[in-house]
């Protein structure tokens, strides 16, 4: 079982991203589970969401304490939120940032591989959200597909087109572009 934890802010679409990732894996025959950290949603407030993907039935129903992959939709959460807590040794961290991955250091983690991609700019390029708060969830899904190989970009795009109510094409293009730009 692979466990993925999303950290974002209200309005960025972290919960939807966790759901789309699960649905894409389901299309490929995997067992899945997706859920938000249960709270009262507010724009701008820290949001956590979770996805589990497995070959076998998923019975567990608690939060993810030892993720394999961390997704950071807003780099300003790094520091205020102990978001690397419990990350497995050799885990992966994908950060929405224009900075180089070498500029991020997480002293409490064991040998993580860090990936950065500027999802905010890509989202804005396709008119997703506003400059003050770009909606980066679909963009980062392309990066997740590329970095983790858990799901194909085709499945991600099919689910985006099915589940995102507005600007389906633009969201799909954002995911496609991050998939292509993401260096692994």
């Amino acid at each position, binding site marked *: 079982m692979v466990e993925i934890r999303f950290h974002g802010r209200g309005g960025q679409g972290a919960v939807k991203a966790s*759901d789309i990732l*699960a*649905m894409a894996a*389901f299309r490929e025959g995997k*067992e*899945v*589970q*997706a*859920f*938000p950290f*249960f709270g*009262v949603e507010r724009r701008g407030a820290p949001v956590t969401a979770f996805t589990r993907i497995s070959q076998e039935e*998923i*019975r*567990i*129903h*608690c*939060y993810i*304490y030892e993720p394999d992959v961390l997704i950071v939709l807003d780099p300003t959460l790094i520091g205020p939120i102990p978001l690397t807590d419990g990350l497995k040794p050799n885990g992966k961290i994908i950060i929405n940032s224009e900075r180089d991955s070498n500029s991020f250091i997480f002293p409490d983690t064991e040998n993580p591989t860090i990936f950065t991609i500027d999802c905010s700019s890509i989202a804005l390029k396709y008119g997703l959200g506003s400059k003050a708060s770009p909606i980066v969830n679909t963009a980062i899904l392309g990066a997740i597909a590329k970095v983790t190989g858990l799901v194909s970009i085709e499945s991600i795009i099919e689910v985006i087109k099915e589940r995102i109510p507005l600007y389906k094409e633009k969201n799909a293009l954002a995911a496609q572009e991050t998939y292509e730009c993401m260096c692994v």
Partner: protein
Amino acid sequence: MKKVLTGNFAAAYGATAAKVNVISAYPITPQTTIVEILSEIVADGLLNADFIKVESEHSALAACIGAQAAGARTFTATSAQGLALMHELLHWATRGRLPIVLANVNRAMAPGWSIWADATDSVAQRDTGCMQIYCENNQEVFDSILMSYKIGEHTELLLPTIVNLDAFFLSHTSQIVDLYDQETIDRFLPSYNPEIKLDIENPRAFGGLTSPDYYYEFSYKIQLAHEKAKEIIEEVGKEFYRFFNREYHLSEPYRCDDADMILVDYGTIAGTAKDAVDRMRDKGIHVGVLKIRYLRPFPEEQVIDILKNAKKVGVIDRAISYGHEGPFFTEVKASLYGYRIPIYGFIAGLGGRDVSIVDIESMVDYMQGNKPANHIWIGLKK
């Protein structure tokens, strides 16, 4: 057909697949999406049902009672304070022998104001005479709603059922649910056509003044119906397996055969406990899980049969009866009267506190190193 659905969607689709005739419900977090989805399904003409809008949960269940008495198959859904407001009418549903199905999203009672998982709301309805199921996953929510109509409508039972699902851990968690095909569901669950109902062509009175000469016998018949329900639940479970290849019972053991210690639990904690058991087994600890599906009728015989050879038993309650102990712990302890098995009562997860594998392992640790106690609180902040 399989879909990735939240527990609330599974509940709404369950009522839709059961082809209910009347729905009446009042929205309350975290149940709200059940009502929203059903109102859309009815408005879109995908289900030929009346959706009765009401001003409270009390009225919602009252509307279902009236419709069910007139021969309709009815559905409602609520949570916590809403269920508490229905309390009076739950008795009406049972004593009127009306097999209504109610989905309750288990949520903590206020104050402190909480929208999170806790079974104290439904356990407080224990003595209303409704049958009660606690679901482990979203598939079980969907399946339990279908089975609850079939079971409740059995002519020897005629009893309402509360199908419980944990707030957020099911209501807002997406999982794969097989919705089967409607033709097979229709064969499993034919339309509802009660022998006795309100009918202007054939007038009858229901729920009139009942003197001490009769009330006692009415009550006895409800008790008999609950006893009979234990058989019918197992029979319908077998039939469900034949139709849909999924097995359900009053209670379900997991790796109990050679277990020294057995953890009894219900709801989503049962799923997490199964993973915890696998992990502990890998370390050589012989532990198993007994999941209780039905609080009422309580599967006393199955509980005795599965637990009688255990060296130690622990019960995990996401509920509490203040001034005593966990309510399921009370039931299990009473069932084991005379067996002299050490039994531990754990209180966990109240108000939505997460119950992790590590928490469950810590309970087993406690059982290995301590004498039994009636209410052991896990992860309590000092």
